[in-house]
C-alpha cells in the first residue's frame, strides 16, 4: 500500500538525476510520493525548515520563463536549507543550444549540487545533465516530460481520494504539446490507474494510445465516470486557426464547464497545472469552485520538490554513489 512513512529510515534513492518519470519504476514513484507526503507538515509549521540540504548549492536554470515552477523549486530548496540561485536565460533561437552547452560548462565549474532546468526543447535537460557533474532535475523540457508536476498531481489525487490504483483519470486538452500530459500518463500508467486522453484529433499526437488506456474526442464520453478531471493549458495563440478553428469553438466543445463536468463522478476533482486560461479550457466557476483542487496542487508542488531535492541530495544518497 502506498501509505506515508517517515523520512528517517529510508533507503537511498537510486538515481542521481530526475530527468523523467520514464526512468522510474512504480516503487520509486511511490517512494517519492511518500517522501513528499512526509514533507507536507514542514510547510505548514511556523518554522518552515528541515535543513537536510544545509550548505548545498541549488541553481534554478530556466530557459523558458515560469514564475510558479521556479518559485516552487526556490521555496522547496530554501526550506531544506540550500543556497538557491535563480538564473533566467534569455535566448535567441539561433544561439539557444550553444548557450545550453556553454552554460552547463560554466555552471558546472561553480560546483553546484543540483541544477534545476527548464528548456523549450525535448531532451535538452538530459543533454545538459551529460555535461555536468551534479544532480539535474527536469523542470520541463519541450513537450517531453515534467516529472515533478506528475508527482505533485499524483500526491494531490491521493490526498483527496486516499488511493491511486483503480481510479480513472481523464486528461483533457492539448495533449500533443503537453509535457504534463506525458509525465502524468507515464506515472499513472505505472501505478495501474486508468487513464483517458480527451481532445480534438488535431491535438492528439500519433501513437498516444500506447500511453493512455483510452482515447476520446468527445468530452462527455471522455469524462463519463471519471474520478479526476485534469485540464491542460491550451497555447491558444499558437493553436487558433491551425489546430483549432477558434477559442470559442474550443471552449464550446472542450472547455470544462458544469454541464460537461456533470458526466464525471459526483465526487470527481478538477485539476489544472496552471497557469489557467479561464474561458478557454475551463469555466471560471469550475476553476474557482468547490471541486477544484488547483490550489492544493500548488501546495503539493512545494512538498514534492522538497522530497525530490532531499532524495537526490541528502547525505545517504551521496554515500550510496
Amino acid at each position, binding site marked *: 500500500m502506498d501509505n506515508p512513512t517517515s523520512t528517517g529510515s529510508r533507503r537511498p534513492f537510486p538515481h542521481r538525476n530526475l530527468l523523467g518519470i520514464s526512468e522510474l519504476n512504480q516503487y520509486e514513484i511511490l517512494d517519492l510520493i511518500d517522501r513528499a507526503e512526509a514533507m507536507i507538515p514542514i510547510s505548514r509549521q511556523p518554522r518552515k525548515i528541515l535543513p537536510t540540504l544545509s550548505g548545498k548549492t541549488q541553481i534554478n536554470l530556466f530557459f523558458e520563463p515560469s514564475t510558479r515552477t521556479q518559485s516552487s523549486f526556490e521555496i522547496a530548496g530554501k526550506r531544506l536549507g540550500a543556497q538557491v540561485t535563480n538564473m533566467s536565460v534569455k535566448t535567441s533561437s539561433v544561439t539557444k543550444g*550553444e548557450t545550453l552547452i556553454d552554460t552547463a560548462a560554466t555552471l558546472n565549474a561553480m560546483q553546484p549540487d543540483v541544477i534545476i532546468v527548464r*528548456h523549450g526543447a*525535448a531532451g535538452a535537460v538530459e*543533454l545538459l545533465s551529460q555535461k555536468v557533474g551534479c544532480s539535474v532535475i527536469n523542470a520541463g523540457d519541450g*513537450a517531453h516530460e515534467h516529472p515533478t508536476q506528475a508527482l505533485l498531481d499524483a500526491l494531490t489525487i491521493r490526498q483527496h481520494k486516499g488511493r491511486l490504483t483503480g481510479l480513472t483519470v481523464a486528461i483533457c486538452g492539448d495533449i500533443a504539446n503537453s509535457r504534463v500530459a*506525458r509525465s502524468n500518463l507515464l506515472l499513472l500508467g505505472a501505478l495501474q490507474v486508468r487513464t483517458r486522453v480527451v481532445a480534438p484529433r488535431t491535438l492528439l*499526437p*500519433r501513437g498516444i494510445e500506447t500511453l493512455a488506456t483510452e482515447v476520446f474526442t468527445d468530452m462527455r464520453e471522455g469524462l463519463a465516470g471519471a474520478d479526476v478531471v485534469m485540464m491542460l493549458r491550451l497555447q491558444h495563440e499558437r493553436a487558433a486557426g491551425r489546430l483549432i478553428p477558434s477559442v470559442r469553438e474550443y471552449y464550446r466543445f472542450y472547455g470544462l464547464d458544469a454541464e460537461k463536468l456533470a458526466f464525471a463522478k459526483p465526487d470527481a476533482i478538477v485539476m489544472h497545472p496552471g497557469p489557467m486560461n479561464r474561458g478557454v479550457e475551463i469555466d471560471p466557476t469550475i476553476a474557482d469552485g468547490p471541486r477544484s483542487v488547483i490550489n492544493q496542487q500548488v501546495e503539493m508542488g512545494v512538498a514534492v520538490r522538497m522530497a525530490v531535492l532531499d532524495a537526490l541530495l541528502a547525505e545517504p544518497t551521496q554515500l550510496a554513489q
Partner: protein
Amino acid sequence: MNKPVVIKNARIIDPASGMDQVGAVHVADGVIKGIVAGAPSGVPAEAEIYDARGQVVAPGLVDMRVFTGEPGHEYRETLASAAEAAAAGGVTTFVLMPDTLPVVDDGAIVDFIVRRAAATAKVNIVPSAAITKGLRGEEITEFGLLKEAGAACLTDGRRSIQSAGVMRAAMSYAANFDLPIVHHTADASLVGDGVMNEGTLATISGLRGIPLEAETVPLARDLQLAAATGARYHAAQISTAASIELIRAAKPRGEISAGISINNLALNENDVAPYRTYFKLSPPLRSEDDRQAMIEGLKAGVIDVIHSAHDPQDTEVKRQPFAEASEGAIGLETLLAAALRLVHSGDVPMMTVLRALTQRPAEILGLDAGRLAIGAPADLIVFDPDFPWVLAEANIVSRSRNTAFEGARLQGAVMHTFVAGRLVFGHAATREGQQ
C-alpha cells in the same frame, strides 16, 4: 604514366553485363583492357599484380548524393577530404550537391568545381546544378549554360521546391536539354516543425513528427508533372512504403527513377532514441515497416539507386537539443558496408545491391562509369564482402565526424580502390602480406 595493373583470382561482379565469375582484370592507360575467366594471360612484365584471393572486383561506386563544404564551409569538408573518404569507401565517382556557398546556380561555379576537383580530388566529382536560383524555389537557373559547364543533373539539394508552377516550368525546360531533375520531396507545410518520423516514438520523446504525406504529396505532384512534360525525373530519396507505390505506378509513363539513402535502408526510427542527433536525417528514419517496404522496392527494381547522402556537419551544430540540431550524417566510408548488411541478411542479392550503387546511377546521369567493360574507365574496387570491422571515430577519414554508424559492427570492407587505373586507396589490412 601508371604501370599496367592486373587483378587476379577475383570474383568479378559487373551488374551492367550480369557477370559474376572468377577471373582477372587487366588495366592499362586508365582503362580496362581485358576481363578474362580463370588465370590471367599475356601479363606485361612491368605490370603490378594484385591477388584478390577470391575477393570481389566490382565497378567503383557511383554516389548520387554527396554534400561537402567547398566552397563556403571548408571546415566541414573539402572536395579533397570528401574524395579521400570516397576512396576509402570504394566510391570512385560522386555527384556534388549544389548546397554550397555560393550555391551552384551559375556556370562559373560549376566550372570552378570541375577545375578544383581535377586539381585536388582523387576521385571523380560530378557537379550538379541548382534547379532554382539560390535554391529559393522561385526562379529557374540557366539549365543550358550549366550543362555546358559540366553539370550532370539539376537538383535543389536539401531543399524541396514548394511551387508546382516552378516545378512544372523546370521540368518543361529541363526536357530541352535532356537533364534529369533530381528532387527531394518535402512539403514544408506538412513537415512543419517536425524533426523525426511521426508516430509513437516521436510522441513519447515529445518531438514533433514529420508525416509520411510530407514526402508523398509533392512526389505525386512531381510524377504527374513529369508525365505531362516528358522530363527525366529522379526522386532523390524516398523513405515511405506509399512512395514505392507512387513510383511503381509512374514508371511505365515516363523516364522515372528513384533513389534512397543507405540510412533509410539500414536504419529505422528506433535508432534515434533517445535524442541522438547523428540520426537526425532528411528524410527522417522511418518505421521498420517502411524500411522493409524499401528493401522490397529495391529488390523489385522500383528503387534504382542507393546513395550515401554524405552530409558533413560539425559537432557544434550536432551537439544540440534534438529539435535544434542540424540534419545529416556522413556516409561515404560506410556506404558499401552498410549496403552489404542487406546482402548478409539475405534480404537482397549482391548483384542487385551493386547495380544500385554502380550501373543505375551512371545510367541515370549519363556517365561513362559504373561498369566493367573493355575500354571503360578503370574505376574499380576490390572488396572483401565478409571483412568484419567496427567504425571508430578516430578512424574516420572525412573531415567531419557525424556518422550514424559509429561503433556499429560492419561486415565488408574495401581493400583497394582504383580511379582511372591508379590506386587511390589501400586498406590497412592489405599492407602486410601481398604487394
